[in-house]
């Protein structure tokens, strides 16, 4: 056995493993080096180094009672646990724990879709249900419902939403935690808690109404170490009739400001119910033109005026936005027409109609349509981007580390972020073009600047990635931006930035942690929340 939970004797650990085996069956406790290695974070930027976060064992229950028993045993022997649902959090820590030596509680085998309610457009699932599984269950039942999934379909509604994950369909569904309704949680003392209306025995509205009565505590179980979530309800969208996408092209650098404002207006007033995404053909096409490539890779970042000239000479837009409308075809057309009028206020803006679809898509469309997560269909095509990096690099990536900062949704803020992040890119010799890239628009009122930093099996590259990550956090903090999510190895760093009033937020979490998990067994260090015994150590 390579790793023991710190402070636990090997005799106690063996006894605990035996008791775990009594709870879940001997086949579902993993403690050989070979089996435990399956829980390493395949995209760890600490791969093979001493600081790599690694498990001591894993245990895989199938029922809530088994989870309770695992928690009781862990309390008895002070064994740190780390729950995962599908364990696919690659880029944000994978299936490895937040504290080395923890026993991973692998909930993949709790994989029942407990309810699909077409009338209420909701579902109730266990943690091991993946987006692929949920999609299939809905199809099998013939329900006309859409899920909203992240790019990789192998993750889970529960794991993804607990880490505040995001998807691509309609407003109100893309923020997966926001779209949940009702949870069941095994607390650190082994008790089972149900939130919202679920606290009412015989409740008829657990997936209908979120708040129940009294403080709404669901958020305390996301990105936290306060409990092990064993069930969650989610609201689903009724399948829309149709979809249309249109794009708007603008030609001046500063045009991004009215472009973003107009998109925000359309979203916030309910006229556009899909994402408005931003892009720049200048950065996309650079590989095809060395002159453009030179402009883009100018030390310190590209000169906007030079790029504007290039855009004018080559009749290429500086910025574009793609608009998405879901719903009745007639309503989509009316909304798009209104959007066209709004954008015409930007001098020189061109509005172009794009592809339209009616649902359900044919099997052929499903196989070939672009970005089918826009239609709630889980798939894995996003990894083709990483596979292409593998093709082109001398030092192939073995994955990536995501840095994801929340920035105000306006053009001025994006310009500032681009400038600031470009400086960091120069400092760490990272591709500048990437750092002047455009923000992602999962959220309705903020954008995310998402950078994927290279992870390799080459320690020097990984060290640089780590240093760049730290610097990005630091400069973000200086500018009033914070990360929405980060891998456990960086969660202390990220949480430290949320320091208003002498870190009162983190101190509040610690107070809760000590009260509900006095032995500090659940995910120590998760989101920078350490139990008392490890804070003092």
């Amino acid at each position, binding site marked *: 056995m390579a790793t023991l939970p710190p402070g636990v004797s090997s005799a106690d650990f063996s006894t605990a493993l035996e008791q775990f085996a009594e709870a879940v069956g001997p086949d579902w406790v993993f403690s050989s080096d*070979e089996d435990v290695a399956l829980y390493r974070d*395949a*995209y760890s930027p600490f791969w093979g180094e001493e600081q790599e976060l690694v498990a001591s064992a894993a245990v895989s229950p199938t029922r809530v009672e088994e989870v309770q028993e695992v928690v009781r045993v862990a309390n008895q022997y002070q064994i740190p646990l780390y729950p995962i649902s599908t364990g*696919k959090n690659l880029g944000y820590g994978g299936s490895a724990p937040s504290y080395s030596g923890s026993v991973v509680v*692998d909930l993949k085998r709790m994989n029942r879709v407990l309810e699909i309610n077409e009338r209420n457009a909701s579902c109730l699932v266990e943690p091991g249900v993946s987006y692929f599984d949920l999609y299939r269950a809905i199809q099998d039942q013939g329900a006309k419902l859409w899920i909203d999934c992240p790019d990789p379909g192998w993750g889970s509604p529960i794991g993804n939403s607990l880490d505040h994950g995001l998807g691509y369909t309609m407003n109100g569904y893309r923020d997966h935690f926001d779209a949940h309704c009702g949870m069941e949680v095994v607390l650190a003392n082994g008790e089972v808690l149900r939130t919202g209306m679920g606290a009412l025995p015989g409740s008829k509205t657990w997936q209908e109404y979120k708040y129940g009565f009294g403080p709404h505590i669901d958020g305390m179980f996301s990105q936290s170490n306060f409990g092990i979530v064993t069930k969650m309800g989610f609201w689903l969208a009724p399948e829309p009739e149709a979809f249309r996408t249109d794009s708007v092209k603008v030609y001046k650098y500063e045009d991004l400001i009215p472009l973003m404002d107009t998109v925000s207006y359309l979203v916030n007033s309910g006229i556009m119910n899909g994402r408005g995404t931003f892009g720049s053909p200048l950065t996309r096409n650079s590989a095809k033109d060395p002159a453009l490539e030179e402009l883009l890779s100018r030390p310190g970042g590209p000169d906007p005026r030079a790029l504007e000239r290039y855009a004018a000479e080559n009749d290429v837009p500086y910025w574009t936005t793609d608009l998405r409308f879901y719903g009745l075809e007639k309503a989509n057309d009316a909304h798009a027409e209104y959007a066209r009028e709004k954008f015409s206020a930007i001098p020189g803006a061109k509005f172009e109609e794009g592809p339209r679809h009616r649902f359900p898509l044919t099997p052929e469309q499903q*196989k070939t349509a672009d970005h089918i997560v826009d239609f709630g269909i889980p798939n894995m095509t996003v990894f083709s981007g990483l596979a292409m990096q*593998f093709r082109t690099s001398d030092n192939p990536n073995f994955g990536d580390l995501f840095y994801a900062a929340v920035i105000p949704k306006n053009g001025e803020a994006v310009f500032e972020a681009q400038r600031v992040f470009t400086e960091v890119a120069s400092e760490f010799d990272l591709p500048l073009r990437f750092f002047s890239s455009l923000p992602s628009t999962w959220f309705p009122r903020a954008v995310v600047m998402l950078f994927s930093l290279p992870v390799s099996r080459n320690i020097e590259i990984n060290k640089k990635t780590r240093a760049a990550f730290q610097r990005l956090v630091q400069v973000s903090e200086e500018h009033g931006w914070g990360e929405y999510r980060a891998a456990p190895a960086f969660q202390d760093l990220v949480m430290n930035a949320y320091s208003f009033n002498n870190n009162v937020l983190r101190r509040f979490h610690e107070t809760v942690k000590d009260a509900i998990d006095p032995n500090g067994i659940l995910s120590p260090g998760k989101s920078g929340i350490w139990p008392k015994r490890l804070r003092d150590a």
Partner: protein
Amino acid sequence: MNLFKTTLFFSLSCLVNQAFAQDAMVEHGNEVYLHWCAPCHDDGPRRAGTLALQFVYKGERPAVLDERTDLLPEYTKLIVRNGISIMPPFRKTEINDEELDALAAYLARNNN
């Protein structure tokens, strides 16, 4: 003579049973493949696994995994449990040992 017939009957039925068992295993392996591998390894567009294998083999071997005729079961198991490049390993709670045997048998079904 009777003994000979009986023995022959038993041997044949064992062979038939084995063949059935093998078929069932390959069929089960196909299900595992469709669930876990096809999303990156089938012949659709932007399939990460297929793109990577196109690059590695440059047409010398099929890029679509289940068209291969040279995948030894041990090799399939090694890759599934260790991962390769950006493909992470799969845990036993995802693909258990029995499913992995079936998957390996499926991918080896057309081996020369």
